[in-house]
């Protein structure tokens, strides 16, 4: 697929999700929490107005799907941004200063990589107590390594180049070189990673909801819907299929955006 198409399709879908999340109350045909046991597990289109059917408590699947974008996007943006901030900072420091800073960060990354990430996130959320904040913290604590590893390698490469040396000869301090010279050159890679990380964060939130550890069951989330759908899969496949499809498209969109950005920025990276 051509690179511009990737960026437009991926970015366009994410923009669409942002709009859905913002205008959820206007778009949703029903209250996502409203139960109607008379209309429970109705197939799509059977009950009037329930276009995507209802779940086991008679709640409208479409409305829950629409409200679910709010949690998904909140986690995607907040968790990915914080993981990016933490990982990039540590990666820059490790790549630039080398020595014991590098040794410590690298060892920490090694230790982190020896944990299955899903298990670690479940354990962290169990420790912190279920809830949106815990989910975000868990994602940040686990996924900063993705940024740190790449940024460290990239910084090492950049710091060896002549411009860094020139800046040093001109009397710039380490902090200024890192901030004004190295960081702008590392930024393209970080941007690509950030886009990919947003997709990963949405998945992790869904997994935690699936295991029953994310936000409270009163708040509609795609993962929570998927968990319920898995249990009543033989009675009502639509409870699983729509949130799963939404998750699929969202992850794909963040990935296409990231890949498109990578191709677009590649000439600048000179690799």
């Amino acid at each position, binding site marked *: 697929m051509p690179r511009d198409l990737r960026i437009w399709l991926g970015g366009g879908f994410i923009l669409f999700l942002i709009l859905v999340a913002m205008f959820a109350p206007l778009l949703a045909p029903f209250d996502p929490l409203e139960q109607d046991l008379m209309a429970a597990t109705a197939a799509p289109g059977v009950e009037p107005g329930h276009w995507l059917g209802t779940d086991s408590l008679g709640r409208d699947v479409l409305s829950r799907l629409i409200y679910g974008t709010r949690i998904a996007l909140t986690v995607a943006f907040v968790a990915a941004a914080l993981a990016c901030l933490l990982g990039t900072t540590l990666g820059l420091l490790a790549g630039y200063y080398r020595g014991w800073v590098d040794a410590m960060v690298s060892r920490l990354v090694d230790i982190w990589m020896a944990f299955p990430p899903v298990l670690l996130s479940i*354990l962290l959320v169990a420790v912190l107590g279920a809830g949106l904040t815990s989910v975000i913290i868990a994602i940040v604590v686990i996924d900063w390594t993705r940024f740190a590893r790449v940024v460290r390698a990239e910084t090492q490469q950049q710091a060896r180049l002549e411009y860094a040396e020139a800046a040093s000869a001109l009397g710039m301090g380490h902090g200024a070189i890192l901030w004004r010279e190295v960081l702008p050159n590392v930024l393209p890679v970080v941007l690509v990673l950030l886009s990919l990380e947003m997709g990963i964060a949405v998945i992790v939130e869904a997994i935690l909801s699936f295991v029953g550890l994310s936000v409270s069951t009163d708040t509609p989330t795609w993962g929570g819907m998927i968990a319920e759908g898995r249990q009543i899969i033989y009675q009502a496949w639509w409870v699983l299929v729509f949130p799963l499809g939404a998750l699929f498209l969202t992850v794909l969109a963040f990935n296409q955006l990231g890949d498109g950005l990578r191709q677009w920025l590649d000439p600048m990276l000179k690799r």
Partner: protein
Amino acid sequence: MPLSIILSRALSALLTLFGVMVVVFVLVRVVPGDPISMMIAPGATDADIAALRAHYGLDLPIWQQFWVWFKQVLQGNLGTSISMKQGVITIIAQRLPATLELAIFALIMAVIWGGFIALVSTAWRGTWVERAIDNFNGIMLAVPDFIWALTFVLVLGVLVPVLPISGRSDPSIDAGLATQFYILEGLARAKFAFVWDVLKHMLLPACALAFPLAAVIGRVLKNTMMDVMVQDYITLARIKGLSSIRILLQEALRNAAVPALALTGVQFTFLIGGTVITERIFSYPGIGNLAIDAVINRDLPLIQGLVLTFGIIFIIVNMAVDALTVWLNPRLRHA
């Protein structure tokens, strides 16, 4: 490889393992909720509770608890599971074979599938076949095992029910095996019907795990093969009249395999990490599923044991890949 490199790698692995132990221990200690309160019988006295606390060593200061636990682990004692009232080692030994067989089966599928993708798209390079495979590969790579697993459950388990979506084998078949290595022992004892049943149960979870890995292998292998295909010795082989299939398999694939192998190893650890949620979705009785139960039950000794098991597996895989890469690359072997 020089002995000093091997030694420093091993030392580094041990340090990492120690770090893993510290992290696990600290994490598990700050879990809110008293595990003791879940195991006391109604009407237990304060003295009973204190005795139980002392029995599990929960009354000591935290660094002493770590020291006690650390010494026990070195002696091969991981304690007793609080929720299952059994030795942690015994429980893990019971469940680990299921996970190992699943992960290795998935790895084999990923290698075959990835190799196939690479061969077909290299053979038909520049045509619509290559573009179609590239696009499909992109989707396989972007979508994680969690989504694949649920999609397979939905499509091949429920809508078109062709494969089982839960458990490890049909409970009505009693194969009377001595070990938990169902496939290995089943094959050794020639119980092919049973092995077939186990394989059918494994197919969907293994596919979910294998898809992203197959995409990675396919992409790397294809890119390296494309580079190889323009080399002089390929042209020479073609002039000598070798068939294009033979050139692809004998020359291109062989030379492209080593770089793909190193990456496969790293990605294999991701696959093992993926077993946690995949086993959950398929109610597969391995250590991943067990680990989620352990966290939900706040079973501290079992959580510690399981995370440590995963850590050891990851480190072993990484070291094995390092060794294999060096062994396959003569330049590194004689360094």
